[in-house]
C-alpha cells in the first residue's frame, strides 16, 4: 500500500529569526525535502537609486553607507572611486594607506558577523556570535576614534578622507592586530574540527564551478567553488598591488568551504593591515581644491571593489551638473542569490537555513 502525498507550499515569511533581515521564500516541499524555491524581495526597497538623482555627489555618500551597513567604509570607497575616475582626481599617498587600513578592518568586522550568524543558524545558539561581537567592538572603537560613528561612517570623500587619524590610533591599531591573530586561532580551535559543524555543513549545498561562474556569483561564494578571482588582485585598485597577500579558495563549493574561505580571509586582512601600518607616510589626507559642489565632466564609468560579500560596483553617468544623471548600484548580495534555488533543491528545510546563511547576504543591498 503506497502512501498518497501531495506537494505543500511553505511560506518562510519576512519576519523570521534566521533570515538575515526581511526576506521571504516560498518553498515547495514534498515531505521535508525541498522541490522548488521562490524568493520574494522588495521588503526593504527604499529607492536609493532614485534618491541619488536628487542629491549632490557629496550628499550621496551617507546613502551609500546604508547599502551594506556592515561594510560602510568599503561602500564609500567604491562610490568615491567612481567620482575620482570621472573627474580625474589623484588621491594623496597617506589617504590611500588610510583607506586600505579602514577597508581591511571593515572586512574583518563584516566577516566576524557573517561567520557568527552562520554558526547561529547551524545551531550553536548565541555563543559564537557573542565571542565575535566582542572582537567587533574593538574594531568599532577604532572607528569611533577616527570619525565618531559606530556603524555608518560617511568618512571617505572624493580626493581622500575627511579627517586625519588622531595620535592614539596607530598604537591602538598595533595592539589590536597583535591580539586578532590569537583570537582567530581560538575560533579555529573551537570550530574547525567540530563534529557537529562538519556534519551539518560538509557536502551541503554544493555550488559547482560552472554554475557559480554562469550565475555571476562573486566574493567568498565564487572562491569557495574553486575560482581564484578577487578584484584586489585581478583589477587592482587603490594601492593593493603594493601589498603581499594570498587569496584562499575552496575545493568542493559546499557550505564548509565558504566558511573556511571567510576565516582565512580574516587572516589575510590582518597581514595587510600590519604591512600598511608600518609603511604609512606622513602628508596631506585630501587632494587640493576639490569643490563642495563637485561637477565631474560628462561621461560614464564603472568602478568596483572587493566587498566582503562580493563585487560591489557603481555605474555612474554624469551630465556635467551637480547631481549624477544615473547611479546604478551592482549589489553582490542580489546576484549571489541567483544560485540559491539550485543549491537547495533536494535538501531538507533545516539545511536551507544553513545554505542561506553561508551565502551571507545583507538585505539592504539586495533591495537597495
Amino acid at each position, binding site marked *: 500500500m503506497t502512501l498518497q502525498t501531495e506537494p505543500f507550499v511553505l511560506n518562510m515569511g519576512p519576519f523570521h529569526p534566521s533570515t538575515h533581515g526581511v526576506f521571504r521564500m516560498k518553498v515547495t516541499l514534498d515531505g521535508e525535502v525541498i522541490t522548488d524555491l521562490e524568493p520574494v524581495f522588495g521588503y526593504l526597497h527604499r529607492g536609493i*537609486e*532614485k534618491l541619488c538623482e536628487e542629491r549632490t555627489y557629496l550628499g550621496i555618500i551617507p546613502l551609500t553607507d546604508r547599502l551594506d551597513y556592515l561594510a560602510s567604509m568599503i561602500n564609500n570607497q567604491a562610490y568615491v572611486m567612481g567620482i575620482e575616475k570621472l573627474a580625474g582626481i589623484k588621491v594623496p599617498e597617506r589617504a590611500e594607506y588610510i583607506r586600505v587600513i579602514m577597508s581591511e578592518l571593515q572586512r574583518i568586522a563584516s566577516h566576524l558577523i557573517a561567520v557568527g550568524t552562520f554558526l547561529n543558524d547551524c545551531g550553536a545558539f548565541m555563543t559564537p556570535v557573542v565571542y565575535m561581537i566582542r572582537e567587533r567592538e574593538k574594531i568599532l572603537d577604532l572607528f569611533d576614534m577616527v570619525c565618531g560613528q559606530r556603524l555608518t561612517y560617511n568618512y571617505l570623500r572624493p580626493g581622500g578622507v575627511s579627517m586625519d587619524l588622531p595620535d592614539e590610533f596607530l598604537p591602538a591599531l598595533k595592539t589590536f592586530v597583535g591580539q586578532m591573530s590569537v583570537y582567530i586561532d581560538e575560533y579555529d580551535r573551537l570550530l574547525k574540527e567540530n563534529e557537529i559543524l562538519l556534519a551539518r555543513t560538509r557536502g551541503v549545498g554544493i555550488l559547482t564551478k560552472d554554475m557559480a561562474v554562469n550565475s555571476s556569483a562573486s566574493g567568498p561564494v565564487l572562491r569557495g567553488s574553486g575560482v581564484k578571482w578577487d578584484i584586489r588582485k585581478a583589477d587592482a585598485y587603490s594601492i593593493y598591488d603594493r601589498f603581499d597577500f594570498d587569496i584562499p579558495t575552496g575545493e568542493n563549493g559546499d557550505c564548509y568551504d565558504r566558511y573556511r574561505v571567510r576565516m582565512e580571509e580574516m587572516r589575510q586582512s590582518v597581514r595587510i593591515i600590519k604591512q600598511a601600518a608600518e609603511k604609512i607616510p606622513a602628508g596631506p589626507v585630501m587632494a587640493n581644491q576639490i569643490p563642495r559642489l563637485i561637477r565631474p565632466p560628462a561621461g560614464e564609468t564603472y568602478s568596483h571593489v572587493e566587498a566582503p560579500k562580493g*563585487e560591489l560596483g557603481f555605474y555612474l553617468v554624469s551630465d556635467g551638473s551637480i547631481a549624477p544623471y544615473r547611479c546604478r548600484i*551592482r549589489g553582490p548580495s*542580489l546576484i549571489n542569490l541567483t544560485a540559491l534555488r539550485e543549491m537547495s533543491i533536494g535538501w531538507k528545510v533545516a539545511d536551507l537555513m544553513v545554505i542561506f546563511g553561508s551565502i551571507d547576504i545583507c538585505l539592504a543591498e539586495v533591495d537597495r
Partner: protein
Amino acid sequence: MTTAFSTKEITAKIDKKLAGSITSLDVNILLVEKDSLVELLAYLKNTPGLDFDYLVDITAIDYWDYFEVVYQLVSLKNNHKVYIKTRLTGRENLSLTSIVSLYKGADYQEREICDLMGIKFEGHPNLKPLLLWEGFKGYPLRKDYLE
C-alpha cells in the same frame, strides 16, 4: 589588471551577417542593434580566445529620447572586459530578448529592469515584479515618474 578588450578585433572576426548592426563607440564599447544582441553575446561567449563567460552587470539608463541598456562582460581566464550597448527608441511597449539561457546571472537583473524601468524581456522564465508589488502604477526609475 583587467584589460580593455579592443572591439576592433571583434568586428574583424565576426560573421558577415552581423557586421551591419555593430558600431564601435570607444576602445571596448560596442553598440549593437537590438535584434542582433543575443547572437553577438553567444558569439562572445562561445568563441575560444574571447571566452566571455562572466556577466558582471546589466544597466538601463533613461535618456529622454531613447533607453540604453548596457551589458558588461568579463573573461575570467583571459582577464579582459567589454561593454555592449543597445538602444531602444520610444517610451511605450519596449522589449528586448532575454539572455537567461546564456547567462543565468541575468535573471534577477532583467526582472528589476522590467519592474523599475518598464522594458520587457521576451523569453524570460518568470517576469514578475522583483522589488515592487503587483498593481504598482508607473515605473519609478523613469525620468518622468511623478509620485
